[in-house]
């Protein structure tokens, strides 16, 4: 059972918002005393997802939450956009698959960086990705 302790919604529409979002994620991670390595992992994961959002969906919304389960705290990020959606999620989650001439490591890499990863996408409607990183996990 995870409880949401605080919620912060950030609109990401411009390039400048990306830096702002990353700073907020970092602040939140520092606040719950997340270790440096986990901070960097979360920050990198957030960076990947927000880049995807900017590139394929022209921006979207990110919700930063501090969640708690028993005695451990964590940060949950929800990225939702109204972009074109992902037709084949299984392919998108494979290493090296990309429709945009990138390394194709963004989604599968992000999944390896965080504790929980959830992706929902509907073609023509948009994509929602939720990730969770525990402070010491």
């Amino acid at each position, binding site marked *: 059972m995870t409880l949401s302790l605080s919620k912060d919604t950030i609109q990401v529409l411009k390039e400048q918002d990306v830096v702002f979002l*990353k700073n907020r994620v970092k602040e939140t991670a520092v606040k719950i005393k997340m270790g440096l*390595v986990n901070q*960097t*992992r979360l920050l990198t994961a957030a*960076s990947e997802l927000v*880049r995807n959002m900017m590139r394929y969906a022209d921006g979207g919304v990110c919700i930063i939450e501090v969640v708690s389960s028993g005695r451990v705290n964590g940060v949950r990020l929800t990225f939702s956009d109204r972009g074109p959606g992902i037709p084949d999620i299984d392919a998108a989650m494979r290493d090296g698959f990309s429709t945009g001439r*990138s390394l194709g490591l963004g989604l599968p890499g992000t999944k390896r960086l965080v504790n929980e990863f959830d992706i929902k996408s509907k073609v023509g409607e948009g994509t929602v990705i939720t990730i969770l990183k525990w402070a010491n996990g």
Partner: protein
Amino acid sequence: MSLKTHQLLKNKKKNILELWMKNQLADESLREDLISNDELRSQSEELITALVSNLSGENFTNLDSDEWSPVIEILGGIAITRARQGFSPRETGNFVFSLKEAILDVLQQEITSDPMTLFIESQKINRIMDNLSVVTFETFIKGREEVILRQTDEITEISTPVIRVWDGILALPIIGTLDSARTQIVMENLLQEIVETGSSIAILDISGVPAVDSLVAQHLIKTVSATRLMGAECIISGIRPEIAQTVVHLGIDLSNIITKATLASALAYSFKVMRLEVKKINTVSKF
């Protein structure tokens, strides 16, 4: 505005100015460090003269009309200068608001017999002064935005220096997030400098990059490939432990690139490649 009131304000211009100056000087937020009293007085006088001469016009309440352009120009000039000088919005706003108070005070003193006229004229003054305040803020914010834009330009300019650390060795410290635009600048600067100095080794130091995601990695790989095409070797240094772990988890393959933990070890490696040696001199100095 009726002719009578206009005449009245024109005659009382000196009073208004004195009252306004008194208001401004009494204000706690007066910034004597940023603007001298004389300067403040000349600014105020200029504005009030332009304002009073406009009060009689047909288009009194229409700020878009040509008659108002001198006033707006003066006010805009003052607001922009204040934004650049570092005044706060409140201090800039008070400049205009205290003028309104001064004019209303004078009106109140002069029109004692007819409350109805006083009310109507006050209302007009209120309306026009509020409009002028909005103009002040718009220009003030524009001035601030210009400052920010200039700073952004400066940051991109200064954040990609190419340093010649040794004859034939270039170092390029990257600070902040590496996006496509920055990569382009970094790559251009680096390649240009390689040609100009005839360097054979370039060290990209990423100690100041907070996170390396797949796009940053891709940009780094591209920069390294481009450097190699120019016949130079590229070393990436400043890889912190947490960055190393993240890169491995992401699954990015950097094994084709020479990477070092610190700039010092990258430099030591370069010396070895160039067959140079750094030695401690074992001579006894006579002190």
